[in-house]
């Protein structure tokens, strides 16, 4: 990694689009030896950069000429996904009441499973017997699993982290259990997702002091243990997770060490934990500046529309969040004009769909007036909102990709943000203005 290309995260006036372009030589599109295991299939589209790993081929098809955004094809063992993409979260091997046919119709390319939950139920033995989560849940497209560590820390009060792993009290019988990097990978090997995550030492993004550095250093050591334990690198991609808290120096150090491991792709972790949004985007931007151009970048736990647009502009390719389906269960629908809260006696005379030009099943067949009478009462109301909310996220990502391909991404960002904020009578959030300014998009404040 060359430090010369590094921008200071705090200097948003630099033109990072140009900076990142100078880095594409790390991945010129010439002659990479053909890999018989590769999911790559011949194609007839131009590729501006690519990388190849045993279980993944990543092809950058187009870059925005202004921002750091790009469009890519992510060839995974089970599916070829288009990025930037949003991955809905199906925690326990199911997507909140939706059938896998409905998920395919929604154009979901990759969905998430949570290792901690799946390890509890159905459990590793069942997953081994059936041959993995794809088989178990009847899903033939991409899957990604987390390491299980985040759930330990967030769900279990008594979790203790040692060099060996995460020690926690079993919620079932109260005995002390230990999740090591080896155990996490072992579980994820049984689940069989296309992309699996290293076990990292998670600290709250609000933590400061030597603990942050310790966690970062330990995450690198655990990455090596994960790589060592990984049984199926030819069919599962192990992604490191960049740590280092909110400290740019620690982040750079972590980036340097993890990039040296030459992983198929990288996740940006340790964010979305209540930190200042202005810090959040600067850390994301710092990471995308340093991560290899020709490898996928995954920003964990990001799912609000404005965050997705901003992070795509900063050069992130993959996102996941429980938000669209969780908010559906609370009776909220997502639209480009902001959220809609369905309550009884609301939208009584509104016989339009949730969103006028949305082509999802719910919008094609149901009025707001009717939906208001069943949300929070009938499970079907919840299913219908989940369908719309996932469709909304998928369309947003499609719009992002199309506008990048047609090199009009900045215009898309501006019109999206105007409609989302200004037209709703809200000012642009300052962090959004700053983040976009750092990639040469100026939001006009009236």
């Amino acid at each position, binding site marked *: 990694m060359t430090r010369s290309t590094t921008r200071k995260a705090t200097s948003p006036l630099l033109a990072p689009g140009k900076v990142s372009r100078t880095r594409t030589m790390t991945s010129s599109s010439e002659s990479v030896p053909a890999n018989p295991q590769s999911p790559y299939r011949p194609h007839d589209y131009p590729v501006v950069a690519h990388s190849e790993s045993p279980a993944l081929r990543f092809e950058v098809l187009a870059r925005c000429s202004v921002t750091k955004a790009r469009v890519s094809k992510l060839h995974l063992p089970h599916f070829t996904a288009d990025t930037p993409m949003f991955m809905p979260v199906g925690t*326990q091997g199911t997507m909140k*009441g939706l*059938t896998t046919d409905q998920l395919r119709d929604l154009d979901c390319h990759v969905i998430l499973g949570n290792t901690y939950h799946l390890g509890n139920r159905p459990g590793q033995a069942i997953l081994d*017997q059936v041959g993995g989560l794809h088989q*178990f849940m009847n899903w033939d497209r991409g899957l990604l699993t987390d390491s299980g560590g985040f759930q330990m820390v967030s769900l279990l009060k008594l979790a203790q982290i040692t060099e060996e792993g995460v020690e926690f009290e079993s919620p079932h019988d109260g005995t002390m259990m230990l999740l090591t990097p080896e155990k996490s990978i072992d579980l994820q090997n049984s689940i069989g997702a296309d992309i699996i995550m290293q076990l990292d030492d998670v600290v709250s993004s609000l933590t400061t002091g030597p603990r942050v550095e310790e966690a970062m250093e330990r995450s690198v050591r655990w990455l090596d243990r994960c790589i060592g334990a990984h049984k199926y690198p030819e069919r599962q991609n192990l992604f490191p997770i960049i740590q280092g808290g909110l400290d740019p120096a620690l982040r750079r150090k972590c980036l340097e060490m993890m990039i040296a491991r030459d992983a198929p792709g990288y996740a940006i972790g340790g964010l979305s934990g209540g930190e200042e949004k202005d810090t959040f985007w600067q850390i994301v931007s710092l990471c995308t500046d340093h991560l290899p151009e020709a490898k996928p970048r995954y920003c964990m736990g990001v799912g609000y529309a404005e965050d997705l647009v901003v992070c795509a502009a900063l050069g992130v390719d993959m996102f996941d969040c429980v938000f669209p389906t969780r908010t559906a269960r609370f009776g909220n629908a997502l639209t480009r004009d902001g959220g809609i809260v369905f309550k009884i006696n609301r939208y009584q005379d509104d*016989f339009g769909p949730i969103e006028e030009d949305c082509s999802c099943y719910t919008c094609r067949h149901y009025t707001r007036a009717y939906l208001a009478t069943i949300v929070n009462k009938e499970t079907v109301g919840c299913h219908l909102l989940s369908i719309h909310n996932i469709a909304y996220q998928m369309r947003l990502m499609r719009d992002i990709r199309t506008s990048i391909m047609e090199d009009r991404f900045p215009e898309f960002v501006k019109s999206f943000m105007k409609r989302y904020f200004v037209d709703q009578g809200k000012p642009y959030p300052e962090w959004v203005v700053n983040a976009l300014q750092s990639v040469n998009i100026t939001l006009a404040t009236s």
Partner: protein
Amino acid sequence: MSLSFCLHPLTGSTQGRLGTLKLSKTDPSTDSQLPECIETPTCIVPTQRGTVPHVTPDHFNTIPGLGAVVMFAEHLVEQRSHPVLRYSNTSDPSTGGDGHHFFNLAHHWLCLDMRDPRQQHQAAHHSNKFYRAETISGVKPVTLEDYLDLVRALQPEMFVALADDLNSLDETEGRFKRSVGRTLQWLDQCLAQRPNPTTGVWGVLKGGPLLDQRIFSAQQTATRPVDGFLLNDLSLAKDVALQQEWIKTSVAHLPLDKPRMVYGMDHPFSILDAVSKGIDVFDSYYAKRLAENGQAIAFHLDESTLKSKSDAEVTSASADGNNSTKLPLTRDLNDPVYKADFTPLDRMCSCYACAHYTRAYLHHLFITEEMLGKVLLMIHNLTLFADFFKYIRQSIQQGTFDQQVSRFKDTYDSYSH
């Protein structure tokens, strides 16, 4: 009359009736996706707040053999003024439409009824002017006009006339008598005032435990130009035997050439008994109740399945030292025995759930209380429940209904559901 009901010639010694419900006037101008006719015996699918429970219509529409759904006004008066009442009046012609459009149930006949028979009800203080509907937001007084407004808005293929429904056997004899009288009075008003003469009207038979009143109610209703008869008070009967008794009493005084519907049959044996007593339409609540409890329907009425089951599985069950040589009617997916069972729910079933998911996965969904479990079991149970009626019709057609019934009862354990 607006629905036609055609009874097929009775065959052999079979007691069940085979019929066809047909819409007498289909609008040739519309590109209607409704089934032209419904073969009976059949089941009608109860909705909640206008939606089939748990299953979105994209999946519901793929289940073969379900011709009609029933909606309950009780759910629609939960709020002050249901939007469906204004839906057909909306000035935008693209949104103007009927209940089929509003509830996205374009592929099934709609039937509107007042009371959801499966809901817990308290007292029944209806008056001549007001039906008191019990909703989650309190008791709502509903006038006959209010009810007919819903009929006007939904434009269902058929509706059940307003009836003086009683919810307890503890009511006095006088109250039961008054119920019979008021129900007839409301029926006459419904027939006279129905917004559209082509909408079918079901008359409700009352009488509760009073046999003379049941007879009177049936005789009087039979003199009206109704399109069919509904027995909606069977849940008041203490046991299955009494239910069948009430059915027998009421049906004896009905004309042969009109369909009879009952609510509240919750056992395949009872359904078969009621079919042999001349009942044509049942509700499918049973399939939903089982699905919500994690129970998959496991019974089949078709000849080949019954035969193979009785040959193979029954003997293996007894070989396992199982006391009962009979097969269970349902399969409880909560049972850990399915934890590692990677076979489909039912080899004989071709529903979406059986084609794509395993017992182990369904077990997982119920153990983790994930919503998809109910979705998939609802699809499966409705599919097999509709199949059950298909084979009832087939065996009546072939004149083998009685044999099939006794074979079915020999094969399945009556208490296993």
